[in-house]
């Protein structure tokens, strides 16, 4: 502990470390490509053979529509010539790498007979397109697109997927209008009843990816953790077998379920051993949750960048804040709560503040894209070129709780499989159509439908 320095100093060192890391991307990633050679696959690979990555980034409470949407292109002409909108202005330097997608709806988040609870629904259905069961205890959602992709391509990397959030504290009861809090704090779901709880502590994310301890010690610590895990598994496996022998046959099913689960975990450990030593980014481990929100979000984006750069995973989701989040943004002069403000009653002053928050979130995102754009991948293209990143919210107009015309930006070229640099109005198509088309590009086979999808989304 350094004198009188709560958290801040170490982070600066950490960021410097990332700078170093960025200086040698090609070499680092070459090694990752070699590692891949053990597992030849068509999955999550670009046309040039580089890794293809996808991320889903969620910002809360929608965006002021008038300030988010670019004016329609003149006479429906060239989609490339649109004028960037006020809220998206921070993305101007990257406009050739992004697509602004209009006309995508998520009807499964509409109230219908379920009444209130649009924040829970917007959040909990964003990546699933499946209606939520309105219940505080009996959770029923859907499988999210990131998990569908991860199930297909996850074997190519050390981690099948990565789930992160910058909401460090989560409520566990009394959330939105009788919906379980799980809906509001998770966007990623591995099954209808199983949220993939996102990790909020940057330190834990880092240690999970690269191991604990100082640079150089991390692989040892990962190996030790694996061994500990294995010794626990060995022990319980023998307990289970001995119990299996003693139990009457009618009970053996129960133990069978247990044994199956253990084998699953063993397989995962074997897999991580197969990949050999994790790449050590050789920078200092982040200390924990930084003391300001801005640093927190930047650091989390940095970790996502590192995970992609080291090819630790190709699928990620990041919940910047849960929908309904009411934090204040005093660092940009806004002390009211975000959610409070979104119900602006058409007061100009309030609308302006919400718009500033929307834009601030976009600025953070553009910083992340910028880093990806500057990092070179194995094929000489940028990491951004070889990525496919959704930035969006499950509410369109936070004031009216609408879920049509959701604010969605799709960044990256997917290694040439996307045509960014445009503003395209898809005119009332399910958002899940877009996901289906993304899954195709990631190499997911035979996915006929997803959520409430009606078709693939053309013109991407």
């Amino acid at each position: 502990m350094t004198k009188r320095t709560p958290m801040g100093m170490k982070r600066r060192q950490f960021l410097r470390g990332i700078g170093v890391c960025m200086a040698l991307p090609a070499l680092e990633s070459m090694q990752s490509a070699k590692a891949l050679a053990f597992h030849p696959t068509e999955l999550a690979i670009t046309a040039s053979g580089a890794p293809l990555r996808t991320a889903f980034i969620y910002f809360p409470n929608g965006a002021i529509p008038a300030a988010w949407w670019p004016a329609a292109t003149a006479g429906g002409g060239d989609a490339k010539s649109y004028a960037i909108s006020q809220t998206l202005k921070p993305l101007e330097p990257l406009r050739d790498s992004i697509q602004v997608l209009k006309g995508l709806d998520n009807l499964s988040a509409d109230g219908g007979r379920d009444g209130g609870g649009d924040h829970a629904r917007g959040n909990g259905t964003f990546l699933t397109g499946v209606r939520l069961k309105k219940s505080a205890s009996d959770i029923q959602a859907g499988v999210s697109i990131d998990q569908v992709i991860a199930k297909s391509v996850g074997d190519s990397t050390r981690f099948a997927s990565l789930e992160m959030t910058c909401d460090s504290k989560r409520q566990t009861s009394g959330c939105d209008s009788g919906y379980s809090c799980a809906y509001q704090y998770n966007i990623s779901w591995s099954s209808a009843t199983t949220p993939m709880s996102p990790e909020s502590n940057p330190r834990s994310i880092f240690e999970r990816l690269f191991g604990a301890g100082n640079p150089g010690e991390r692989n040892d610590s990962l190996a030790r953790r694996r061994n500990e895990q294995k010794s626990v598994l060995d022990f319980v496996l023998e307990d289970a077998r001995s119990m299996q022998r003693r139990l009457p046959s009618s009970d053996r099913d129960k133990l069978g379920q247990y044994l199956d689960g253990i084998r699953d975990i063993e397989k995962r450990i074997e897999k991580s051993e197969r990949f050999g030593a994790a790449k050590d980014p050789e920078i200092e481990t982040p200390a924990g949750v930084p003391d300001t929100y801005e640093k927190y979000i930047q650091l989390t984006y940095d970790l996502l960048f590192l995970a992609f750069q080291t090819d630790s995973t190709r699928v990620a989701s990041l919940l910047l804040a849960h929908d309904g989040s009411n934090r204040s943004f005093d660092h940009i002069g806004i002390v009211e709560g975000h959610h409070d403000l979104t119900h602006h009653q058409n007061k100009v002053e309030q609308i302006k503040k919400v718009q500033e928050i929307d834009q601030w979130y976009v600025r953070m995102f553009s910083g992340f894209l910028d880093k990806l754009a500057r990092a070179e991948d194995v094929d000489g293209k940028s990491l951004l070129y070889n990525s496919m990143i959704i930035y969006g919210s499950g509410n369109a107009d936070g004031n009216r709780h609408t879920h049509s015309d959701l604010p969605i930006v799709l960044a990256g070229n997917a290694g040439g499989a996307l045509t960014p640099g445009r503003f395209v109005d898809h005119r009332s198509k399910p958002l899940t159509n877009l996901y289906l088309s993304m899954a195709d590009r990631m190499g997911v086979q035979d996915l006929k439908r997803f959520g409430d999808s009606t078709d693939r989304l053309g013109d991407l």
Partner: protein
Amino acid sequence: MMNCGYASRNLTAISCFSLVAAVCFGSGLRAGETDKYETQIRPILVENCYGCHAGGEKNGNIALDEFEGDVRQSPALWQKVLVQLRSRSMPPLGEAGPSEDQRTLTMSWIKSDVFKHDPTRPDPGVVTVRRLNRIEYRNTIRDLLGVDYDTNANFPSDDTGYGFDNIADVLTVSPLLLEKYISAAKAIVNQAVPIVSGVAPRRTIPGGEFIKEVKNDGLAKLLNELASKDETPGNRFGRPVQGPPKDDPMLLTMSYKEHTIGKLTTNVNSEGRYAIEVNLKAAEQFVDNIFDYNRCTLTFRVDDELLVNREFVRQGNEDLSMTFDIRMEAGDHNLVFEVIPTTPDQPQVRYLRLIVKNVTLIGPAGDAYLVPPLNYARYFPKPVPKSTSERREYAGELLGQFVTKAYRRPVDNKTIDRLVSLAESVYGNGKETFESGIAQSMTAVLASPRFLFREEGFVPDADGGHPWVDDYSLATRLSYFLWSTMPDQELFQLAAQGDLRTNLDSQVDRMMNDARSSAFFQNFVGQWLQSREVESVTIDSGAVARRESEARPGMNATSDVDLERRNFLRNKPASELTDAEKLELEKLQNFRQAFGSRNRGPNFDEKVRRAMRSETELLFQHVLKNDLPLTDLIDCNYAFLNEELAKFYEIPMLESLNGNEMRLVKLPEGSLRGGILTQGTFLAVTSNPNRTSPVKRGLFILENVLGSPIAAPPPNIPSLEDASKQRDGKTLSLRETLAIHRENAVCSSCHNKMDPLGLAFENFNALGRYREKEFGKTIDVAGMLSSGEKFSSVTQLKKAIVDNHKQEVYYCLAEKMMTYALGRGLDFRDNYALDNIVQRIEQSGGKAKALLIGVVNSPQFLKTRIKVAYASSLRE
């Protein structure tokens, strides 16, 4: 879905028989054996039942002349017949039924010939090996390691079967759950078990120990003046904002609006480096749509050193933790917080305040100062020895004790050896401590199926009956039944001595008097009567209130839609509203004003819900602990209430009822309340979000109180909401709607039973509050039971149940409790046990303890149907 007569789950099977039945009828009967059926039983059936249940007639899906093979091969069908005969519910009112002799004869034939019950060797049935459910896991961890692990947040919810969440067959282990078990094991052991022998000393000073001083200086005066000029803040519904909550004496609370100092002098024994941890919360009272722009500066000093100097705006109840590294001399030190308001002219809306939870002093740093960590002696009673062999021996001792408790039975040496080796593999390399090795082995124990599942052992019955479960298993059955947790020391000890079975009744008494028995009332009663659900059931009190308001404009009664629509319109820019929309908005707003929040009566809030839940649990507890008649559950002249609930029910204030505590009170003369059926729990959990549901209420009583299950409705039936609610241009009451519903013969056979029961409770709305009118019309509650008793009030209905149907209530309760105790659904083989329990209850004059003692002493609870060979193979 749970039915007291366990009939409905066999319905599908029965309807399948009928397809082939006619062809096969009679073909499997062998001469001699069937004589009794043909000569004695069948004639009774022909005379009394065949009119509706033979020759193609299949009322209630029961046909008594269509059997595949031997009639005695259909126990599930005969089970239904038995229940009907037992409760005298068949034949229906007005039709001649069997004589008492015929009834007894048929019932005993079913028991002896169909169920083949052998009184000398009763069949205890088999319980599948049971996994701990979320609640049991949490309680077990609490008792084993003193850690409260939030399983609701960390584990997926458990499936339920037969109405309970402890049913072995449906408690599965998914790969995900297994992963959660392993990470839970790690997290729990991390939290509980120290992995080093020494840590820096740690002293936590609660915020409340700071001496708070609000400066009465110029600034404060100015603030007071400004405050008096403030308009009373209010939210957009015009409700006044609550004042700030009372300060918690354990915390130091400082308002953003007051110049405040919090001081404390503390003594430090040794000079050295210390870490100081400041734990804060920035709190506010939420107010809809009015913001609070106040700011303040917070400083924190240790002596003259300024450690915090930071401006705060509202933070939305965020927790903050800051740590500083400083050097301190031995002696006294002053710790000073100061809050300086920086926005004196801002109105105070949300009572922004900084709360110091505590200041923790960690140090001095250095090996010389290390102290044993919290709880060290609990896990490591002796200093860790140096030599390998002594360490091994110590590890064996520690782990042997732990694993015995965790597996709830003595554990073989081989297992303990494996645990010791596991620990050694961790600490043996010299990089990790001895303690971390032990912790690692403890993690393995908590992840083992022998901890997660309740494995049982058996001992042969010397008299040739089915084997007993051994004493350790019995201890475990008892403790999970009555406490939802692992056995305590006394149960272990009795099991070890082999004395548990002989001390059963006194142990049950002891356990019921232990605080842990609250789990029984929460979980058994909470699920049997669904009172656990009252805390989460969705009911819109506005919609309920609107049904009871006299002048109801021609508007949709489902309020959510209204509200959403109004908000939608109100938030639309005025320039975009069409004329029609403007008119609609005005109408909606007027309506809300007239029937908005102020007319809803008391809030159906968390406090009321919690009080309702404990009202139900406490009544059952009271009846059981004082060994009162079980019929008190149905009808009694007392209740458990607190001030809030009494007000909610509008029971004339009883003097003793002040405050939050639930108290036993005598109800006023003539009160409709008393008993579970007039409690908020039953009345609310059986309601729809916007209205009562007499059908659900009737069904609940049939299934959970009278044990007379109803077949599921045929498919493709429109819901009540879709059925016509308008006739001759006027809106119909629920009673009228239901009456139309019953005109249909398909509906009437069941609804004639359900509806009158449910309609009797119409004086209680969906929130459980009393009312006399709905939509301006006086409510009529009169009706008749399917057994013929007429009633004109809910009091008379309760009396009819107590006077004429108590045996049905006993059977129902016995079955529910047995299901919960065993963790399995019952079948026809369990009838004799239920008969014995009900007999015991009747002999005791209907007392409650007879029920509990009856369940615990049943062969079902004490024994198992299993090959004795397993008993000996259990010990490795």
